[in-house]
């Protein structure tokens, strides 16, 4: 079969980095948790 496997590495998250530098509170206050979402875009997709 045509299949592929990509190894992933667990790395230190931004949360852990910010927690260590005592900057997590600032981050949590200014960056509420959010998912990616798409707003309306009206430009011509064929302009490329």
């Amino acid at each position: 079969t045509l299949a592929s496997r990509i190894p992933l590495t667990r790395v230190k998250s931004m949360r852990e980095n910010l927690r260590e530098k005592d900057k997590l509170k600032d981050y949590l206050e200014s960056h509420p948790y959010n998912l990616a979402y798409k707003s309306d875009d009206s430009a011509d997709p064929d302009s490329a």
Partner: protein
Amino acid sequence: THFVPMRNYLDLAYVGIISIGTPPQEFKVIFDTGSSDLWVPSIYCSSPACATHNVFNPVRSSTCRISDRSIHLQYGSGMMSGFLAYDTVRFGGLVDVAQAFGLSLQEPGRFMEYAVFDGILGLAYPSLSLRGTIPVFDNLWKQGLISQEVFAFYLNKKEEEGSVVMFGGVDHSYYNGDLNWAPVSKQLYWQLSMDSISMNGEVIACNGGCQAIIDTGTSLLIGPPDVVLDIQKIIGANQSHSGEYLIDCDASNTLSDIVFTINGIDYPVPASAYIQEGPDSTCFSSFDSLRGSLLTADSWILGDVFLRLYFTVFDRANNRIGMAPA
């Protein structure tokens, strides 16, 4: 100009290597089922965050085509501005030709400097991607590079060992028993209907049903603020000065499983998973709140805490998600 708001990237923690261009330029990216676009920093980016990451140089790639289309990706209080380009993307032996991707010019906001990854490779549905572009997975399928329209994640708790994303097939050695399938309820995120969340046989959240998004780009278990606050009280977690919820580390030996029931199947999450050990013998709750989101009030996001327990197959051919104990 295309505006595409994005999540914060606080908890993204599993990275893989891809290359873009000819000859290839390497990047660490998050394989993210919660978004649909691919983007990396460019050599033209002047922000401090770009100085600490690998950047793409289109001039050095003979196969790169740059468009005049600008894109703006918003995250939290910051924004990534850039433009759209097309080039060959390689990973795991797959060669994805003429793939659309974003290149950043500016990444305002100092917080991205703390990100260990360079960019994001989105694996959600095309309806979430930049208009007129084809996401990476759709291109793999369209170009005949994979034989089955599926991909799957196995996430290991250990740092260097064994975590993997597989495209075009499922390796059965990564899970026990049979996969339990649940239909995708809305083809935007990898979203399905969840029956309930319970503890000791009592429903503690999602009473009467709710929506759950299976998201490799989220680390924690994210739910509505009021419901999550109730759960924090039930498990004895208290808010710290940083806004996180602290919990006695010993509770991981005494608290019961919290059971997520999806399509009639119970998926228990033990206390040892929903309590995370931090530095200095402090422990944190793995539950967090969904604030300021466009999602409806009864939506949950099941991130890596859940995915480390359950091997997950994302089946685009049948629009369903399969899960089994990892």
